[in-house]
């Protein structure tokens, strides 16, 4: 009886108070929490990047001990990957996928709650890993970088154990979230919404979810072996005990390389929604984009050791990884062509989401071509572990993942809040952000080639001028995100009413059902499934 009453109330609107968030099983509320968490952590991860750039502003050690510096390098990567991009993409999936496919909610709402609430716990653990080394007797800071390579990670102090448990919790969280999303996409589509009528964002997340389910356990296994080596006397990675330090690298990159596509694909899905909208014509090559993602999925799982060309692998495997890596240019090239050809002969307008999408096409292409340079083994034996690599993967991951998430936020904020964002501020944010980004990372290619390795706290004055440029631009880049925060808060608080279809072109081609709902959508959408013709 009492459960019936609770059930009745459930249908009328969100519960009141903190309980609405703590015990939420509503995909929109959980989506909002994911996105808020990601935005908060963006500033934490960004702050560690600012520390790094402040220290690299000029030669000499100005602000921090080498171990603290490399701890910041570790934190920056772990936070940006696990606590910003992945939760933000999961937040978008939570918000959008049920509305796009005409489902009432995610397939597994309680799991959804759990997978979110594991994240703050992991974030606290990660921050503790930085604080712990300041206590006496806890050993050195986590100075390994996010790759956690042994034996250095075996030497590190107690902070490393906190990082290992952080990775465990994050792994559980993302496996649960992925299972939920995959199950939702496969089982909760409205009648008539066949797989090939799905919005591209759903396809992208289907591949992302499957990838995560395959790779996350491998990382969890790898760091568990690390934990055992550290405390329980095993020798998985200790050559003196018959183990192999390179084994960890293989385990890590078997996770780490597909992880790049985990970060990338949701944003590819977003761009595939945005570009048709603002070009006012259907996506060019829907099926080839799906096929491209499938090929990327497959090749991505067997290309991992291109991160390890310098570990002295034999000729055979090295050649295999080089060929597979170069072949990745085919699906990526196809995706980029599809985007360019969607714009071609369209009637484009340039609202903020479209500005981001166009800039992503160009900057991600650039990451692609430097990626081919890196794939060539002999050349990589010079580039490896230099700032050139740092520049390359920031071009891949900032346009390829982060800017796609910003584009998504601008694209769907009117739907989520019912209010239009401030277009003028949006455009200012775009230009400020993208110009500062390029000034930060473009020069890094050159001082990398000139011989500056990664993960060094101090450097030779030959690299000084461009490092200073990088640092100044990085501060401008970092500050620009405060403007984004301001735009989001302003939009949530109010603004011009957006209407159900804020974008004129949002109904062309294969779009989701989200535009049929009111803005903001009701707390429970699609209690009875719509029928897709």
């Amino acid at each position, binding site marked *: 009886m009492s459960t019936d009453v609770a059930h009745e109330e459930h249908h009328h609107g969100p519960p009141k108070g903190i309980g609405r968030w703590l015990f939420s099983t509503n995909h929109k509320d959980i989506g909002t929490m994911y996105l808020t968490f990601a935005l908060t952590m963006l500033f934490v991860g960004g702050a560690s990047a600012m520390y790094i750039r402040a220290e690299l502003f000029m030669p000499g050690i100005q602000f921090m001990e080498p171990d603290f510096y490399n701890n910041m390098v570790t934190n920056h990567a772990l936070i940006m990957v696990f606590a910003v991009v992945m939760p933000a993409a999961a937040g978008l999936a939570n918000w959008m996928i049920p509305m796009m496919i005409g489902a009432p909610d995610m397939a597994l709402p309680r799991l959804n709650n759990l997978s979110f609430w594991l994240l703050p716990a992991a974030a606290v653990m990660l921050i503790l890993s930085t604080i712990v080394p300041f206590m006496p007797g806890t050993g050195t800071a986590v*100075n390994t970088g996010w790759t956690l390579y042994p034996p250095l990670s075996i030497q590190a102090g107690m902070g490393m154990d906190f990082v290992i448990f952080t990775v465990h919790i994050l792994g559980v969280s993302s496996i649960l979230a992925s299972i939920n999303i995959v199950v939702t996409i496969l089982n909760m589509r409205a009648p008539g919404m066949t797989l090939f009528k799905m919005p591209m964002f759903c396809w992208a997340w289907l591949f992302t979810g499957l990838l995560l389910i395959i790779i996350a356990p491998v990382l969890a296994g790898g760091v568990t072996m690390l934990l055992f080596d550290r405390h329980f006397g095993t020798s998985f990675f200790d050559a003196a005990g018959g183990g192999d330090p390179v084994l960890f690298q293989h385990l890590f990159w078997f996770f780490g390389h597909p992880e790049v596509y985990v970060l990338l694909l949701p944003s590819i899905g977003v761009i595939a929604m945005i570009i048709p909208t603002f070009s006012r014509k259907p996506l060019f090559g829907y099926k080839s984009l799906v096929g491209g993602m499938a090929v990327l999925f497959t090749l991505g799982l067997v290309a991992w050791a291109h991160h390890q060309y310098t570990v002295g692998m034999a000729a055979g495997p090295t050649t295999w990884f080089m060929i597979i890596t170069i072949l990745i240019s085919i699906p990526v090239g196809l995706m980029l062509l599809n985007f360019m050809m969607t714009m071609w002969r369209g*009637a484009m307008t340039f609202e903020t989401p479209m500005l981001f999408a166009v800039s992503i096409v160009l900057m991600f292409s650039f990451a692609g071509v430097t990626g081919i340079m890196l794939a060539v083994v002999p050349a990589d034996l010079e580039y490896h572990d230099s700032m050139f690599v740092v520049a390359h993967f920031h071009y891949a991951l900032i346009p390829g993942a982060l800017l796609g998430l910003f584009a998504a936020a601008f694209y769907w904020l009117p739907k989520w809040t019912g209010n239009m964002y401030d277009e003028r501020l949006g455009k200012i944010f775009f230009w400020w952000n993208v110009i500062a980004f390029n000034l930060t990372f473009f020069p890094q290619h050159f001082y990398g080639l000139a011989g500056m390795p990664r*993960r060094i706290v101090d450097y030779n004055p030959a690299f000084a001028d461009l490092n200073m440029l990088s640092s100044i631009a990085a501060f401008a880049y970092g500050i620009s995100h405060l403007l984004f925060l301001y735009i989001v808060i302003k939009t949530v608080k109010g603004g011009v009413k957006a209407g159900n279809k804020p974008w004129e072109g949002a109904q062309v081609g294969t779009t989701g059902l989200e535009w049929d709902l009111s803005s903001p959508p009701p707390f429970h959408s699609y209690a009875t499934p719509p029928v897709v013709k």
Partner: protein
Amino acid sequence: MNYIKNKIASATGVVSSLLVNNAYANKYNLPEPADPVVQQIFDLHMMTSLIATIIMVIVTLIVVYSLIVHRKDKGYVPDQNFHKSWFGRWAWLLVPIFVLGVDFAIAKSAHHTLDTIFDEHAEADMTVKITGSQWKWSYEYLDSGVKFTSNLNKDLTPEDEFYLRDVDKPLVLPVNTKVRLLHTTTDVLHDWWVPAIAFKVDAIPGYITETRTEILREGTYRGQCAENCGTGHAFMPIVVKAVSKEKFAEWRDQQVAAAAAAAAEASSDKEWTMEEMMAKGEEAFNKTCAACHQVTGEGVPGVFKALKGSAKATGDVKVHIQTVLNGVAGTAMAAWKDQFNDLEIAAIITYERNAWGNNTGDVVQPKDVAAER
């Protein structure tokens, strides 16, 4: 429109000419190669850079043309059936074929260099074993037995040209000689990277990895550790001095003679005085041990043990000698028995037992160390 096109073309032209023309004299590209394989790598790098630039120019031109022409405010009517045109129907096949062609061209040109790099039967005139340790490099010429350790020159300031790129004892190699470089490490991963003379390969505990060099020109080549090795990662530079074969032979003979003299001194029956041992010990301690234990002997709390007033440095001499010779398993304390001779170890222990108020009064003699080996 043409104006913008020209602008873009000239901008990309500047970038590519920056890469191509300044290839041999600039600070923003790979350094000028001084080794035949590195020369091949350099050429490969310039070729892939050029292909990258061309692809970027094409992509940018298509996008910019589209941005200028296909816009709503120009009244352009969208072509709703473009994706159903012949190009729309065949792009999925045409584009991969085109990209595959480019890929093939790149892979093919890398093929020869790959073969050279992986040539397991490559001949070498001499072999140098390079051992990375936190945070210094040790070199051993396997043919002549000469070995020494190379440390960061700490006297330079950030204003100096070779700040963090200078060492006390550079690796000396002859030019026009095929040298096999073997890499390993005593602790964590390192990577011996001197971009002008050799491609890099990681130094991995339990492994011996290999690179080769054949330096073409005399001169000084600089580099540094490329694989994160912890606290001192930024502070383990590499300097290679390439000299003529004659000069190298001369240098090598000097080193052999000096090593023989040192060994003779260490194994002589001489009783060393406190003053002699303290002077020798202080020099060796500050150069090597102070990296962790600090010049003050106070260590780093929680990380590196203090020696000042420690039980080991003021307790049983034999335990102290054993610790220095064999290290302490599971900690950062390495075994030093292969890096120092008996005299040096005796001097270091004497110093540790009498400096910073550890006034034990012990003078450890080389034969005491020899007895513990």
